[in-house]
């Protein structure tokens, strides 16, 4: 198969941005908003993730995040394969939660 769990990548962006001054808060808000506009969804506060159907596609979005980087603050960008992502264990409190669904090429609503 061409679209499989080894080719599909998830990009994780985690960031700590300073929010001391009004200016810094606006910069941080803008970064977050732009990341959302690029198709990332919030996973946890200041951790955002995006599904990419191929390596090439992931490269595009990583490049875009790099362009958005603010002057100050710590940002991490990481990619994992869908296989690795699917092995994550997720808890809300002590309750185990299901992982977000992998978007399919074809979706029926």
């Amino acid at each position, binding site marked *: 198969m*061409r*679209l499989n769990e080894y080719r599909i990548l998830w990009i994780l962006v985690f960031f700590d941005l300073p929010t001391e001054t009004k200016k810094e808060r606006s910069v941080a808000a803008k970064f977050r*908003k732009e990341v*959302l*506009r*690029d*198709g990332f*969804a919030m996973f946890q506060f200041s951790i955002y993730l*995006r599904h990419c*159907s*191929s390596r*090439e*596609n992931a490269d595009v979005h990583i490049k875009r995040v790099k362009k958005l980087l603010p002057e100050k603050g710590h940002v991490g960008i990481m990619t994992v394969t869908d296989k690795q992502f699917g092995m994550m264990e997720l808890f809300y409190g002590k309750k185990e939660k299901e992982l977000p669904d992998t*978007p*399919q*090429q*074809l*979706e*029926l*609503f």
Partner: protein
Amino acid sequence: MIKRTLHFSNPAYLSLHQNQLAIDLPHLKSLGEKESKKSIPIEDIGIIILDNQQITITHGCIAALLDNNAAIITCNQSRHPTGMMLPIDGHNTQSERFRYQIDASQPLKKQLWQQTVQAKILNQAAVLFNRNIACENMVYWAKSVRSGDPDNYEGRAAAYYWKNVFPKKLDFFRGREGDPPNNLLNYGYAILRAIVARGLVCSGLLPTLGIHHRNKYNAYCLADDIMEPYRPYVDEIVLGIIDRGENFLELGTSIKTQLLGIATVDVQFEKSTSPLMVGLQSTTSSLAKCYEGTIRRITYPIMTNFDNKRGSTYKDKEVLKSILINEITESGFTKPEDELPF
């Protein structure tokens, strides 16, 4: 890159939020926000099928989808695709490409049609071959197609193909308004046509100006031309549905899912394999180059994975396969009556 196909068969509100397609599904409201509200990046969408009378879509959303070269397909009450919306400017050198396309000479168009018919007949032969039905005559016809197909080998091959491809007990007669499984074929072709039209627009071509089809009522002549060699891929899906004995009298969800899967079917080219939606882009861009005069062949897929499933046990099959492959790579502009237009 492979884009996503979205099919809406339930009431939905579609709008634009932060460059994302925001989907609100009222029928899932009782399950909570997580189920009823979804968001999908516009840039990941290739085709969107609106198959319910209670879908509301905002203008911003339509404009953003078209900006992203997505095809929007609307369906009528009987849930068959009726219309398609495509962007006006899908390519940056569009005007130049339009001009090349409009100025294309008659001999060039005829040669392109010859290649198209050849590829189509060979792919049809491959489907028959897969089902252990005699197809030597098809291969011969494919070889005999002349520029512009004046002998109408396409029709001859189609007649033979449709008579034999379905199981005998089905008593099949192919027609647009015909009995099932015609409805499956029509549905599959409509989706395929949308994918092809989208590919053409992306390559900066006018899907209206065909190389062979010229019906004045048809808005997608070129799409109908270029999709010909791809039709057998739809046929294979439909045949698979019939072989598995599914109830095909109605277009159920399972059948629709399989037919919509046409976008991800693997297609083989001389050197590479790719999902149909991606392979189509190379077909359309090669067509644009043919119009420009830089190359002479359209890149069409060849169904050569004949014996993958069954194992090559028959010698004559091997021979036939090699004929099929050689045919597609060697035929073309060798005939003396074909004056090269460039």
